[in-house]
Every structure is written in structure tokens, then in C-alpha cells.
């Protein structure tokens, strides 16, 4: 069946992805892991910084992937959770002098609570209406951060400058490299936890809701609980990503967390393949590097070039990186047979 036919026959907005197809094989995972560990030793600090951002946005895309690919709920409000996480870390580090590593779990927990609470009223909404509600959250967030009431902590429009941590124990590595490995460990931890979550009873409940809500509730799945839980988990992971982002960029300001960020993350998820967790990194690479490529082609028309590139990707590989991976596996299998 060709890609075009597949699209035509597809009824649901979010395609049902079997849980086995959500991850990579062990061999491939190992290769990717080794590449992620070794590359920083060979490249400049600037590239290491970009790779750190790649992992951080990868985490945020992964969080959205659990929400949309896992439980079938849309969100255009991830930038709001990312902002809350970033500000939590920044405020704790700068005002309470807390260790950067300790601020991350706190950012995660606060965002989990925030997401869970937001998920409650959002329960009444589904599909595009839910997307709109989250969109409202994303547009409101930068302005909430500017409010005079919070200004003592948030720094208002001026934002907060964050001190970058040095490598601990006198390790002979640059700040960038240390932060990269620190981020890598957290990313791998969260990735493994997410994979396990989706393979667990809760994960099956998410997917049952995604595939058919009525059938799921008939089977005894507490739809309300699992939907809000998916929101909470997704927000929590996004919050950790936001905290890491604040530490890596060394600065938080309302202008960094506009609706553009939320749409970028959504884009990253689609390009990486909805419901395919390893695709999150590919999607993250797309939203970081493709704008730079577009700018390299034409400065004045960078937006248009980006649009064309995005269109090509969606037209040629509608299922994103997952589709490329499947085709590659099939080709590899054929070659093996021959």
C-alpha cells in the first residue's frame, strides 16, 4: 500500500500506533546512544551547546508525543508548561540559591500539578476544541509572566539571568560539555521511563482512550483520570525540559516562550512521527536546524523556504521520521535476504 492510499484509508486524526512500534530495536538504540556519548568529545563547544538544545527540545517533543501519540489529546499549549518549568528553575537558582540539579524535579512536580489541574476542565473538550483551549494558555503565558504582581520574582519583561553551573568534582570538562552529559543522563532516564509508562497498564489505558474513548470506558478504563494523568505527565516532562533550557541558555524572558515555541514543538512531533518516541529527537533536530538551513538559502525569504521544506517533508513522508525508519528497515531486510 502506498503512502497516499494509507492517508486516504485513515479515519482517525491520530493514527493507532501499536506499542511495539513506538520504540527502536536494541541494536539501533545502542548505536544512537554511543553516537550521543562520543560526538561531544570531537566537536566544538558551540556544537555541544546545539546538541544540548537538541536533547532539551527532544524531551519537550517527547512529552507532547506521550499526550498526543499516547492518549490522543492535542495541545498547542506546551510552551506554557515549558515556561513554567524554566521560570521555576531560574527563580529557585537565582533567588533561593538552590543547586541547579535540585530545581529540575521541583520544576517537574510543579508543572505536573499545573498540567493535571489544567487537564481537569479540559476534559470536557476534545479534538480541535482542546487544541484551542491549550492555545489560549500558550498566548496568555508570556503576559502572565510580565505581570507586575510577579515582577519581584520573574524580573518582568527584563527576565532573569541564570548562572551556568561548572562541572562538579573538578572534572576536567567545559561547562557546555558537563551540561550536555547532565542533560543526556536526564533525557535517557525520562525516555526509558516514558517507554515503560506506555508499555504499562496506564499506557495501555492511554492508547485505549486514544483509539476509542467509549470502548475504553466500557472496558473499565477511568477515562477522566487517565486523560488528566496524561496531561500531567506531559506537562511534568515539559517542565523539566524548560528548566534544563533555562540553565543551558542562562536566561529566561517572556519573549522566549511565545506561541511560536508551542507550534514548533507540535511541528517537531509531526515531523518526528506522531506516537513514535524516538522520532522526538528527529523532530527536535528539524525545528532547530531547518530554520538555520532556510536562512542559509535566503535571508529575506527564510520563512517561505522553511514553509517549502516543511511542505516537502509532509508531502513525501506524511508519517515523518517513523515512515523513513520503516522503509529503511524494509530495505535493510531485503538486502539481507539477497
Amino acid at each position: 500500500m502506498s503512502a497516499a492510499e494509507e492517508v486516504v484509508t485513515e479515519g482517525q486524526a491520530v493514527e493507532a500506533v501499536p506499542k511495539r512500534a513506538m520504540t527502536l530495536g536494541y541494536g539501533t538504540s545502542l548505536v544512537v546512544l554511543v553516537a550521543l556519548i562520543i560526538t561531544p568529545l570531537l566537536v566544538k563547544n558551540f556544537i555541544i551547546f546545539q546538541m544540548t538544545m537538541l536533547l532539551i527540545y527532544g524531551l519537550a517533543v517527547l512529552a507532547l508525543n506521550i499526550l498526543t501519540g499516547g492518549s490522543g489529546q492535542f495541545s498547542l499549549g506546551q510552551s506554557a508548561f515549558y515556561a513554567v518549568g524554566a521560570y521555576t528553575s531560574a527563580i529557585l537558582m537565582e533567588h533561593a540559591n538552590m543547586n541547579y540539579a535540585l530545581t529540575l524535579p521541583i520544576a517537574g512536580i510543579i508543572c505536573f500539578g499545573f498540567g493535571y489541574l489544567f487537564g481537569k476542565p479540559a476534559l470536557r473538550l476534545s479534538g480541535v476544541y482542546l487544541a484551542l483551549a491549550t492555545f489560549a494558555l500558550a498566548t496568555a503565558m508570556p503576559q502572565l509572566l510580565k505581570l507586575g504582581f510577579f515582577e519581584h520574582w520573574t524580573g518582568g519583561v527584563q527576565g532573569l539571568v541564570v548562572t551556568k553551573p561548572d562541572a562538579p568534582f573538578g572534572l576536567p570538562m567545559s561547562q557546555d560539555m558537563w551540561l550536555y552529559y547532565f542533560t543526556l543522563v536526564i533525557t535517557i532516564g525520562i525516555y526509558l521511563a516514558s517507554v515503560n509508562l506506555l508499555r504499562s497498564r496506564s499506557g495501555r489505558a492511554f492508547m485505549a482512550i486514544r483509539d476509542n474513548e467509549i470502548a475504553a470506558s466500557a472496558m473499565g478504563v477511568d477515562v477522566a483520570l487517565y486523560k488528566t494523568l496524561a496531561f500531567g505527565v506531559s506537562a511534568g516532562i515539559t517542565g523539566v525540559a524548560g528548566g534544563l533550557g533555562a540553565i543551558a541558555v542562562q536566561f529566561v524572558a517572556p519573549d522566549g516562550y511565545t506561541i511560536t515555541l508551542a507550534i514548533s514543538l507540535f511541528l517537531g512531533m509531526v515531523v518526528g512521527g506522531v506516537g513514535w518516541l524516538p522520532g522526538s529527537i528527529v523532530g527536535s533536530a528539524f525545528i532547530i536546524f531547518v530554520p538555520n538551513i532556510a536562512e542559509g538559502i535566503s535571508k529575506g525569504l527564510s520563512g517561505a523556504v522553511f514553509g517549502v521544506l516543511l511542505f516537502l517533508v509532509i508531502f513525501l513522508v506524511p508519517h515523518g521520521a517513523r515512515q523513513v525508519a520503516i522503509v529503511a528497515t524494509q530495505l535493510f531486510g531485503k538486502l539481507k535476504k539477497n
Partner: protein
Amino acid sequence: MLSTLRIAAAAAAVTAFAATSTTAFAQKKYDTGATDTEIKVGNIMPYSGPASAYGVIGKTEEAYFKMINDQGGINGRKVNFVSYDDAYSPPKAVEQVRKLVESDEVLFVFNPLGTPSNTAIQKYLNAKKIPQLFVATGATKWNDPKNFPWTMGWQPSYQSEAQIYAKWLMKEKPDAKVAVLYQNDDFGKDYLKGTKDGLGAKAASTIIMEESYEVSEPSIDGHIVKIKAANPDVLLIYATPKFAAQTIKKTAELGWKPLQILTNVSISVGSVMRPAGFENAQGVLSAAYAKDSSDPQWANDPGMKKWNEFVDKYMPGADKTDTSIVYGYGAAQTLAKVLQMSGDDLTRANVMKQAASLKDFAPDTVLPGVKLNTSATDFAPLAQLQMQRFKGEKWELFGDIISGDVASE
């Protein structure tokens, strides 16, 4: 042993020679980003995103350095202007500036735009001792040589402009009852502070009302009605273009005629005065430091003639009424001057030192009499403006050039 002595003797001779002939045989000194043939200059601009209208500044600067290179460069070196898009997003600004510094290896970063973006990169550049030269924002905090010796502003700061209005008011209308309408962010608050500083001890009695609005509000009408009720006779409008136009229009609709003073940010004839209605805008005051490219009084001005030739040749098809082209030209010309002064000593320290030694420099596009001055303790190059009054369909300058230097914080 003998050879060591010989080397020492030779070295001594060379040193003595160098010491006696510093100017003629000045030693060439370079930091990363400068060579015998090239000076690499980095820049970030919002070519996309919410502030993309300012991208024209980057394009103007690129065109300006192309012109410089066509004329043989600066002291025989070509300027390689590398400009990236930060989309007005602080995280992207950090990424692009690090790319400029660590991958492109520029000598310094010139005219990066936006207060949030510049705040995000300031610490990094100062830690690396890389000049963050002539930032394109009017916040007052860039003039802080003690804490940030590698960061320097360019345009008049919002505070110094507000001080000029305050000084003018104290002289012309000493018993004015003033209402201040300001945008509730760093931009508006800088103006408010400058006004109060300028009025000094009289601030408390002169300012009878401070009213702020949020940039998210759809209309400003409610605030105007409220201000009118307090019956001030002077209204200071520290608002961005859309709100400034609304204010002028609403004031006229209410049949209220206070003396209105408008921030330099919103003096565009096309995007503020025309939408507000020319008949409503008569008599509004403001201040300027640059020539208005659409004003016929500069048609025979030698500086603006050069500007027009430049736009015709290097930016064909560009909209000449766009103030960003005037701005970019002036900033780029200032940099060219600094690089020329740096001579063959193209180290980061010397570029910064030369930038801090500008004496009465006047780019082609600033008003006659306005001059750029800097020193080791003054990192605010432009601090002079001239008052202007809106008459007919354009601004008319009046009075002397007024200086509003704000001491560094």
C-alpha cells in the same frame, strides 16, 4: 650562549626602533576574526518573527559594508558582515551568537537588536571579553562600563530622551500639570523614570497622574477618558506606535486639547500620524536625533544625498520612508569610523577602546549639531536630541540641540 646574547641584542634593537616609530611602523596586532585582508563582524537580527520589520536594519548594514568594500574596505581590509536571524527569541539569540563567536569566529558582535536578546547574550559576551558593540535598543542599562565593560549602546536611551522633555517643560511651562501615559514594561518605565529624574524636586508637584496600559489591551480609550477627568494640561505619551495613534485620535474626539508630547519611538508619519489623522496631530511635540528621509527640507543636505545615493545603488527598490534604513546606515557608519580609528591594532580590547573614544562624530543621517561622544565612563554615544512640532503633514524642528546625558548606573 653567544647566540642567546645575539638574539637579546637584536630584540633590544627592535624594541628601541619600535618605540621611536610607533605611528609609522605600528605593529599589526590581531585577535580572532581579523587578518591582513578581512575583519569579520557578527550580528543578529529578527529577520523573522514578531519584530521582523526591524530586519531591514540588518539588510541596510550588510549593504553599507558592501559599499565600503567596493570602495576598498577599511585600512585595506574588507568587512565580512555575518548576520543571523534570532527571530526575536532569547534562546535563539544565544544559539546564534555562540555560532558567530565559536564557529564563525568573529572579531566582535555589532548592533544586535532587541532588549531581551541583548540581555540574553550580555553575560556570555562579557565573560568571553568580546565587544557587544552599539546594541540596537534604547534601554538605559547598556551604559554600564563598570559592570559590563564590553557592552555599549548607540541610540539615545529612553531615559535621556524623557529628561529632555522634562527640561523643556520646566523651561517653557514651569507650572504645568502633567499626566504620564506609559506602556507597562521596561520601555515605558524607563521613560517614566527619566521624566521624574529630569523634573527633579518638582516631579511630585508637576506630575498629577501616572497611567499605565498593557500592550495586550485592544484599545487605549478608557485610559484617555480617565486621564481627561483629572484635567492635566500636558499629556506625555510614552506609547508604541499603535497606541500612540489611538491616543492622539481619542484626545481629539473628546474635544480635549492638552499639550501632547510623544516618544521618539512613535514619530513615524506613515504609521502613527497619518492613522491618527493629520488634523488631530497638529501641534504634537516630540524630539528627534536623525533626519527624516521623507522630509523635503533635507533634499539638498549633503549627508542625505549620500544616503539617497547609497539606497539607490545598494538597496534598489527599498522603501525610502522606512526609518530603519536611516538607522542602519548611521549605526554602520559609526562602526566604520571605529574600525578606521582602530588602524592595524585589531584586537578586541583596542576596538572597545576606540569605540569609547569617539569625539564629536556626526554620521550623515543625524540632525545638524547632534554629535556622538563616548569616553571610558560614558558608553552612551548618542545623547542629544532636538525638539520638533507636528505641522501640516510633517515634523518641524525648533529650538536648540538639547543634551540629556544619563550617568551610568
